[in-house]
């Protein structure tokens, strides 16, 4: 059962990595080595028997679902979009932003039409529940362009400060979801490595709560 002592955790590369590492450190997991500028994608911390995989955010649910990683830290936007059967153990309250519907300023209520987004499934769910007629146009970036160039009537995209929207003469009209980073688990790992997972949830939960009181 010795292999059961190790936990593999998939972390998202990019914007969300520094605050994630800070949180892990506050939880007593010294992961300074992960900050080094290397191309390495796998790190082992022997002292605490943790292994970290660096992955593209959208791939994290896949790594966790297939058990390559026992756990993952990933944004709720991706969880909503991927619809995997993972256990969502903890809200890490990192990287807060919102998935919103936005449109050109002053264009009146959206009655239906074309929606440009990187998040087709979340978008479909949102508008279906509201009984709107719509068609999704999937884009991979610069979503704000779509209404300006009349490719779409509205967009569904992530916003944190709202700055990009404003700069492009867009305004937010509805919130689809509130997004933060979540700790997710592979159901098999959650059950078979129960004690280790409970330990990690415990230390992270404390670290999250201490952060909140500081604010």
């Amino acid at each position, binding site marked *: *059962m010795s292999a059961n002592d190790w936990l593999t955790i998939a972390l998202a590369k990019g914007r969300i990595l520094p605050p994630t590492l800070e949180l892990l450190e506050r939880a007593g997991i010294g992961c300074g080595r992960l900050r080094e500028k290397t191309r390495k994608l796998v790190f082992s911390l022997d002292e605490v028997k943790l292994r970290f995989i660096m992955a593209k955010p959208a791939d994290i649910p896949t790594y966790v679902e297939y*058990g*390559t990683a026992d756990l993952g830290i990933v944004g709720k936007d991706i969880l909503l979009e991927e619809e995997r059967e993972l*256990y969502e153990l903890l809200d890490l309250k990192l990287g807060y932003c919102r998935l919103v519907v936005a449109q050109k300023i002053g264009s009146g209520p959206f009655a239906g039409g074309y929606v440009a987004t990187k998040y087709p499934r979340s978008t479909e769910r949102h508008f279906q529940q509201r009984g709107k007629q719509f068609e999704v146009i999937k884009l991979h970036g610069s979503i704000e362009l779509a209404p300006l160039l009349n490719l779409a009537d509205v967009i569904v995209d992530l916003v944190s400060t709202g700055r990009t929207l404003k700069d492009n003469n867009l305004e937010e009209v509805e919130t689809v979801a509130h997004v933060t980073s979540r700790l997710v688990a592979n159901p098999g*790992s959650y*059950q078979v490595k*129960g004690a280790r997972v409970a330990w990690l949830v415990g230390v992270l939960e404390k670290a999250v709560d201490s952060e909140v009181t500081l604010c």
Partner: protein
Amino acid sequence: MNEKARRLLIPDGVRDLLPGFAGPKREMENRIQEVFGRWGYREVATPAFEYSAVFDGDANGEQEGKVYRFLDERGRTMALRPDFTSPLARVAVTHLSNEPKPLRLCYGGNVYRHASGQQGRQREMAQAGVELIGSGCAGSDAEIIALAVDVLRALKLDDFTLCLGHVGFLQAVLDAHGVTGIAGERINHFFNRKDFVSLKELSSELQLPAFSRESILRLPTLRGGREVLAEADVLLPPGTDRGSLATLDEIWQVLEDYGVSRFITFDLGLVRALDYYTGMVFEGYTGGLGFPLCGGGRYDRLLGHFGQNSPAVGFAINTDHLLLVQQRLKKLPPSPALLFAAYNEKARAEAIARAQELRDSGLAVIIDTKARASGEARDEAGQRGASLLLYFDESGCSQTDLAGEASSDVCQ
């Protein structure tokens, strides 16, 4: 894509099992049925499709919209079976209604469910399972769990955990705190998915008293050995029904006698489909595999749908998932050694006779389809993946080893 282009494809969610998998899978299924048989369970086979109404009270009510339905030529609604439990309940109250209870029945075969929009989900899945119908005691709950352990061990798995819970426990907690209706259903749903984040959000939203909130949120964290039952006791306000905890304790004691309690982890947050299960529920997991290997529980209301109230308990094992695990652990049995019998124009009869003798003795032998020279026969045998070539000509039989292992003389 036009129809013609689809000729070479198969739809998502179904698959072809190729040599090297189909055989081991069948062998695994045979081994599972063998274990069921040794516990006194008798196999029944039911049709792949039957009247849709049979599945009305099914666990897959939980997965409503996942049943494949179609109309037959007389306009009647049919359903491809989404599981075996309802068909077996139907068999129990019709053909077998006069047999003394409890009935011990087992089955194996494919089930079908819609899996639209979900990546990597199978629409055709192989299952094997048992139902113990007509007994409501903890001993029969324990029998089902011990049998599940026995099956997994017969398949040479040892790194697995069976999580054991009871739907009555969550229900008692919710009742005690006066959480009913939609709120209760949502809490159950989040428990089922182990979505602790939404659970926490919902509990603040509901503005429950601190004590209730604490007790509902602590629940899913209660996991471990028998000590968990005592911890759980504290979460229930005085005067609440503690029947579920007593039942779990009783099951545990029986499992101790079976010598399998070390495979059990209590997980009081495990609820599965609350409107279907009525007592203990369990799921089997192995490391890294994101879906349960097996699962089951007590469903005392189902037979009522077929007009005969009777307690029942059962479990099903997903043989496709098991195959995946065996493959990962490299525990798939190797294909048996293959012999190749070739011959020249004069010796076909001898070759066929000897090859058949060897087949009768249990070996796998391919008989060549035409006469060849011995050199050519050797190439042919190699291409067929044979480990041994038997070549027959006027001078008799000669044996050539192709796998580089010393083998006994099979010519004679």
